C-alpha cells in the first residue's frame, strides 16, 4: 500500500511538475497484427519523446524509435519552429485507411509552443503500409474535416477530397517546417500568384483638406520565382510561422474532374507579422501523387467584400 502511494505521488509529480508524461496510444480498431503493434509502439514512443523534449527545451531524442531519415528530418524541421507536447497519458484513437494502403491517425491533441504563445492543435500521423511513421502534420478542425469528407459524392470525389484535405494539412504544416522545397514543388512552373495589398486612397475635399479616404485592395500578380523569393525572405527573418486554415470549402470544376477549387480563411502568425485573409487555391490532381497549385490568391479579409473573393468560377482553364 505504501509503495502504491509512493508510486502515485511520484507519478503525479512527474506529470504535474515537469510535464514529462508518457503518452500511450491504443487503437480502437486494432487487429493486433504486427503492423498495428508497430504503429502503437512507435507513435507512443515519439509522443513521449516530444513531451520530454518540449519540457527540457531540447531536440527530440530518437533513441528506440524506428523511423526513416526523411520522416525524422521533417519532424525535426517542425520541432525547430513549433515544438509541442501531448498532455494526455492514454489516448484511444481510430486507425484510418487512406489511399495507397497507408494509414492515418488523427485527433491527437497537443499544445504547440511558438514563441511565447501556447496553442492547442491536433496532430495527424501518416503511416506507411509497413507501420512506420511517414509524416506528421498539424490537422484541420476535425468537425470541418468530417463535414468536407461527407459532402463527397461517390467514391472518386471522396478520395479526391481526402487527398485535398491531406494536401492542405501538409501545405499548412510546410510553413511550420519552413519547407521551401515542398512549397516549390507544389506550385506549377506557370503558377499564377495573386496577392491583395491594401492601398489608401486619399481625396482632397473642396476645402483642400484631405478626407479620410477609402481603403482599396490592389491585386498584385507574381510569378512562381518572385513568390518563392519573397517566401524565402519571410522564412529567414522569422523564428516561427504558424498558419491556420478555417472555413474550408471544396468545389470540383464543372467539366474538369481533376481540377478543384479550395476557398478558405487563412490566419498567418509569425514572429514579426500577422494577418487574416481569404485564400484561394486551384489544385490540379491530374497526377494524384503530386497535385499542383496553378493559382494561389490571397486577399485581405477585412477589406474584401464576400462577392469579390476570388473563386474557381473566375478562371478559364486552358490545358
Amino acid at each position, binding site marked *: 500500500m505504501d509503495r502504491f502511494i509512493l508510486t502515485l505521488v511520484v507519478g503525479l509529480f512527474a506529470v504535474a511538475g515537469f510535464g514529462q508524461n508518457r503518452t500511450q496510444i491504443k487503437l*480502437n*480498431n486494432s*487487429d493486433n497484427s504486427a503492423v498495428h503493434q508497430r504503429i502503437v509502439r512507435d507513435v507512443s514512443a515519439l509522443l513521449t519523446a516530444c513531451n520530454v523534449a518540449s519540457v527540457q527545451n531540447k531536440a527530440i531524442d530518437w533513441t528506440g524509435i524506428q523511423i526513416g531519415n526523411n520522416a525524422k528530418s521533417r519532424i525535426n524541421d517542425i520541432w525547430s519552429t513549433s515544438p509541442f507536447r501531448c498532455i494526455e497519458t492514454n489516448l484511444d484513437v*481510430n*486507425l*484510418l*485507411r*487512406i489511399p495507397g494502403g497507408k494509414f492515418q491517425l488523427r485527433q491527437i491533441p497537443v499544445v504547440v509552443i511558438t514563441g511565447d504563445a501556447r496553442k492547442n492543435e491536433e496532430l495527424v500521423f501518416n503511416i506507411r503500409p509497413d507501420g512506420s511513421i511517414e509524416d506528421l502534420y498539424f490537422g484541420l478542425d476535425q468537425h470541418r*474535416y*468530417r463535414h468536407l*469528407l*461527407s459532402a463527397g*459524392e*461517390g*467514391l472518386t470525389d*471522396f*478520395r479526391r477530397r*481526402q487527398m485535398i484535405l491531406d494536401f492542405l494539412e501538409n501545405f499548412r504544416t510546410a510553413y511550420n517546417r519552413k519547407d521551401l522545397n515542398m512549397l516549390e514543388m507544389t506550385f506549377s512552373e506557370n503558377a499564377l500568384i495573386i496577392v491583395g495589398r491594401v492601398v489608401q486612397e486619399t481625396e482632397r475635399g473642396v476645402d483642400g483638406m484631405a478626407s479620410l479616404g477609402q481603403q482599396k485592395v490592389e491585386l498584385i500578380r507574381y510569378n512562381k520565382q518572385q513568390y518563392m523569393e519573397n517566401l524565402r525572405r519571410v522564412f529567414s527573418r522569422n523564428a516561427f510561422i504558424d498558419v491556420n486554415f478555417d472555413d474550408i470549402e471544396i468545389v470540383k470544376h464543372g467539366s474538369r474532374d481533376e481540377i478543384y477549387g479550395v476557398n478558405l480563411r487563412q490566419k498567418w502568425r509569425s514572429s514579426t507579422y500577422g494577418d487574416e485573409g481569404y485564400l484561394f487555391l486551384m489544385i490540379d490532381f491530374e497526377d494524384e501523387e503530386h497535385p499542383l497549385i496553378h493559382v494561389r490568391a490571397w486577399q485581405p479579409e477585412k477589406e474584401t467584400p464576400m462577392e469579390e473573393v476570388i473563386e474557381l468560377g473566375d478562371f478559364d482553364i486552358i490545358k
Partner: protein
Amino acid sequence: MIKRTVVFLWLLSFGGLHAQTCDEILNDKAYFSYRATAETVEAARSAAQDFLLNQITTTVKSVTELKTKEISGEVSQEYVSTGRMSSNLRLSGLRHVVCENQRRRDDDVTVVVYISLDDLEKSAREVENQVQQYLEMMEMKKLLDNDILTDAYTAYLLTFLSPMNISATFEGNKIRDARSFLEILLKQHLRDIDLSLAKPRPGGPGMEEQFSVEMNVIGSNQTDFVYEFYSSTLNSRAQLPRGKGTFHFIIQPSAPKERYRGYLSFSPLRIDPNVRDAAEANGFSKEVSIEFDFSDIIEVDFNIREQGENVIASPVLKHLSPRTFEWFSNGKLISTDQILRVPKDEIQGSVKLVVNGLTSHAKEQTVRGAPIQTVQTDKKPEITTEQEVRSVSLLGSELGKLQNFSDLQNKLRSFRQNGQATWGRQNDFVNPDQCWVIMVDGESQKLIHVLTPNQDGRKDLKTGKVFQQIDEQFNGYAQIWIDLF
C-alpha cells in the same frame, strides 16, 4: 462508304477469330453460352444474350421485405425475399458468333452468345474491387463518425452487377458474401426506423374528406435518404425526403382512432448512374402500422324539432361515417333509427345521441324548459336515410379511389350486380344533378375528375375543387354519368 468498310473489316476479323464452330462453343466447358434463332442476327443475338444473362443470374435480383405480423397481440417480424431474373450484369468479354450452318429456314439465323469462364471471373473481380473500395470508404467514414448507409446502399447495388458472389474485407474481417453483409446492414436500418404522425388535418369546406398528416421517420438521422410511405388501403403515397413529408388521403373516419397498414421504404437521394437499373429492381421496405387520431375533429350534433305530436331529431355529423345511431332520453334508449321520431311525452328532460357507440363524442341537448322549435315542413333532413349515407360516403368514395377506366368498368359491373347503380349520358337522366360524373381522358384512360352530385356545386374527389357547372372546361373528356342508389 466508311460504315461499309468498318462492317466488312469487322466481319473479316470475326471470321479470323472464328476457329470454333457454334457446336464447339456450346459444348466447350470453358464457356458460358446460349443459342437463339430469329429472323435477324441482331434479334437472335439479343435473345441469346438475354437467355445467357438470365442463366448466369437466376438469383441476381431480390426484393426483400420486412413484414410485421400480429397474432393474438404478439408482433413478429420476418423478412420476405422474392427472386427475379436480371440482365443488368457488368460483363466484359461477352462475344457472339453467327452459326451459318444452323439455318432452319432461309430467313432464320442462329447466333451463339458466349463468355469464357475467365472473363466471367474477371468481370466479377472488377465489381469486387469497386465494392471493396466502397467498403474501405465506409470503414473510414465510420471511424470518423460519418454516415455510411448511402455508401452501403450503393455498394449493395453494385454487387448485383457481378455475375458471381463477391467477397470483401471490412474492418479487418473477411466477408464471404458482400451482398448479404450489406443487406443485413441496410435491413438493420429498416428495423430501427418507424413513423411518427401528427394529428390529421381535414381539408377546407367542401373537402372535408381530404386529410393531410405530417409524417416523420424516427430512428434515423439520414440526410441523404428519401423515405416513402405507401398505403394501398388509402390508395396514397408520400415522399419523405430526409425523413419528413406530408401524407394526403381521403377518408370518412368511423372512429376517433383508426389504424392502417402501409409500407415504409427508403433509398438514397442521389443514385450512382451505374447502379440505377439495379436500384429500380431492388428495394427495401417494411410493413408498418399507423394510427390516425381524429378525436379532435369528429363532431356529433343533431337538430331537433316538433312536428305535430311528435319530436323529430336528425343527426348533424362532421368527419364521421355513421354505422349505428342510439338515441337516449333520461338515460333510456328510445331509438336506434337514424332519424329520431317519437311522441313528445317520451322525451324526459334531454335527448342524447351516440353514433357508432362513441360515448366520448356523444351529444346531449336539454329539451324540457326550452321550447323545441316547431317546424311544419317537408324539407329533406340533412342526413336522410341509411341508403343515402351509404351512397355518398361509401359507394361514392369508392369511385374517388379509382385510377383508370378499366377499374371503373369493373366497379360499375360490381355495382350493377348489387343493384346499386345505373349509368349513361347526361340526357339519360331526368335529374342529372343527382348523378356522379366521371371525366375520363380518352388517350391515357385515366380518370381525371370524379364529381359528386350537384349540391351547391360538384366536388371533385380527385382535386378537391368544387365546380358550379359542367361546362367547356371539361371538353375533351369522355363523361360518364352515374346514379348511385
